[in-house]
């Protein structure tokens, strides 16, 4: 009986897998127990109570409001928001720019193809961290001090401290207007989606125009007025207006330049992989070169592009942790600071792992859904 079980391929592989799983579980529970015991032996507190204490350290910039009086929990939230912000921005800009690079690389214009070829070779073969430091050093050495800031357009100042722009602000009954505005936008979107589903022939441009008219009426009714606050040099720095910091600028430039090179190659590979016959078929139907590209080739190339593009997006999200080298407060920098302030290293690293795992899984899920959508439908 037992021997026959052993000789059954199925039973044997089940047994092996069960043993392996048990060993992995045992290993991790031993690691966890050992860690907790060692921490206790060294007098280090364990737990997440510290999250609710005031953080007390400053964060140089954030997309959501933060003050050092906020809790460690909120400091983590700020780090997550900053990481998401630079990830989304880097991915969106790199995708757009990468598409252009990919198309230029296979262009018949020798200049365009040569320049993009050189760019891709240079960028793909040097480490990202070096490139980030290069862009940061370039911005901090090339730009003037605040007192000698460049003033290319009235109200815009470019200096070492970043780019300062006039900030638009609304005066009047802003509360009601923003409520109305959101309602109008939701109504317009609902009209488009539901109306189409119900079979109404709604033109997008008509709906947008109607929404704009409604917004204008709402603005007039609420007495909304737009005013701009201009940055001005006060003491050491510019005050007022909207600031794009040097760190952020260097970072986004660095990420986009780096990631676009990879995306450009993915796009070029995807387009090249579509058979020559498809181009010829497009021409035979009387489509122009651009129409063939847009309507015949790219839809097919997308099936090839999406899986490696997903990997590239995931790498980009994870690459954001390098931002701390140029002083941008993404999650990694904040986790490091929290560890130093509280000594809660393991807890903080667990939070960072969980956050990056969640972001990466969300990106994967979205891209897999999109991949299924563009994939060849088997009938």
């Amino acid at each position: 009986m037992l021997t026959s079980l052993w000789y059954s391929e199925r039973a044997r592989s089940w047994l092996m897998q069960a043993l392996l799983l048990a060993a992995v579980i045992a290993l991790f529970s031993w690691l966890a127990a050992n860690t907790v015991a060692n921490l206790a032996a060294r007098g280090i507190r364990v737990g997440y109570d510290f999250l609710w204490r005031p953080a007390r350290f400053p964060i140089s910039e954030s997309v959501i409001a933060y003050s050092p009086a906020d809790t460690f929990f909120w400091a983590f939230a700020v780090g997550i928001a900053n990481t998401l912000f630079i990830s989304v921005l880097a991915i969106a800009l790199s995708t757009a720019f990468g598409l252009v690079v990919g198309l230029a690389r296979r262009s018949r214009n020798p200049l365009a193809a040569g320049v993009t070829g050189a760019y891709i070779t240079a960028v793909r073969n040097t480490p990202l961290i070096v490139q980030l430091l290069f862009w940061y050093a370039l911005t901090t050495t090339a730009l003037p001090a605040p007192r000698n800031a460049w003033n290319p357009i009235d109200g815009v100042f470019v200096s070492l401290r970043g780019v300062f722009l006039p900030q638009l602000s609304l005066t009047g009954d802003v509360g009601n207007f923003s409520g109305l505005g959101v309602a109008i936008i939701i109504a317009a979107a609902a009209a488009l989606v539901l109306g189409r589903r119900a079979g109404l022939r709604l033109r997008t441009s008509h709906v947008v125009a109607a929404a704009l008219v409604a917004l204008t009426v709402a603005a007039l009714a609420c007495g909304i007025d737009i005013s701009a606050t201009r940055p001005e040099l006060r003491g050491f720095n510019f005050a007022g207006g909207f600031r794009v910091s040097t760190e952020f600028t260097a970072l986004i430039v660095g990420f986009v330049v780096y990631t676009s090179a990879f995306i450009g190659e993915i796009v070029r590979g995807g387009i090249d992989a579509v058979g020559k016959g498809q181009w010829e078929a497009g021409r035979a139907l009387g489509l122009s070169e651009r129409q063939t590209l847009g309507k015949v080739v790219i839809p097919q190339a997308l099936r090839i592009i999406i899986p490696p593009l997903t990997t590239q997006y995931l790498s980009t999200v994870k690459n954001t942790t390098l931002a701390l080298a140029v002083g941008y407060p993404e999650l990694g920098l904040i986790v490091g600071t929290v560890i130093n302030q509280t000594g809660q290293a393991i807890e903080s690293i667990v939070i960072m792992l969980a956050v990056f795992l969640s972001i990466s899984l969300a990106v994967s899920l979205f891209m897999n859904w999109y991949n299924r959508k563009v994939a060849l439908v088997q009938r």
Partner: protein
Amino acid sequence: MSKKSPILSALAGFVFVASAAGSPAAAQSTLDAVKKRGHVICGASQGTVGFGAPDGNGYWRGLDVETCRAVAVAVFGDKEKVAFVPLSGQQRIPALQTGEIDLLPRTLTWTLRRDANGINFSVPNYYEFTGFMVPRELGATKVEDMAGASVCVQTGSTTEVVVNDVSTKHNLGLKPVIFDNVAATRQAFFSGRCDALITDAAALASVRATQASNPDDYVIFPATQYMDALTPAVRHGDDQWFDIVKWSIQALLAAEMYGITQANVDEMLTSSDPRVRRFLGVEPGNGAALGLDETFAYNVVKQLGNYAEIYDRNLGEGSPLKIDRGPNRLFRDGGLMFPLDFQ
């Protein structure tokens, strides 16, 4: 056998090795471990001249470095039996807690929460205030002048909190630019990205003396009126090692108080002062109490000199930094350094 077996056996091997490595380490005392290894491992800075940095020949010099050497002399009678691990501000405490280093003399400010969370502070080896360094041309000379200034900060220290405290207290609206490593922080300051660099005043003096193209172009002034005690630390759980570190540092201070220098230490062996005789181990007892050689204090002074000599060659008149000893004088000279009784 199936194909899975190598993975299984590797896993089993790993579990075995890991459990073997995990348990006995805690039982061994730090002193035994250090003696068995043959040298003391100290956390060091990533290059702050005066406190801890390798010189042109790769030989580590600085006040914190010599503090570590004093412990090595006390244990081995040899100031060269040391190894230095350069650590960032963030790495230093975990490195001590996990046993990667035996001792952390690295401009570490003694604070309640650090003390309560896994490490013990021995004896302050430097007292100091947090300072701002500002280009002279900006005309700022005191904290109140700093309204709206951008300040370069290195993370992994108490400085971030000081920036916030100062900014809040004087309502300055300081704009911190925070970096992960020392080099980037200093580069950003000298490029003009920030108006000011903030850290310990002596570290600022060190940066100014070694990295500014013209040191006279920069001024340093206190950011707070509060003094910090920079104190070498050990991890919790080994009282004998804690004592050895404390009394090795104390030996430097006591030698200065007793007037014992590297040059006269041999003559002092014949001193009639009972305190000096106990200190140098002529009258035995101190060494045995700590589990060290009876001549440990003699050895420390013989090889390194007293605190005044170490200060002078690393930070004072004998160094490029020329920092006034200020609060780091002995109490009898109006400072905060207080040698304890060697008996």
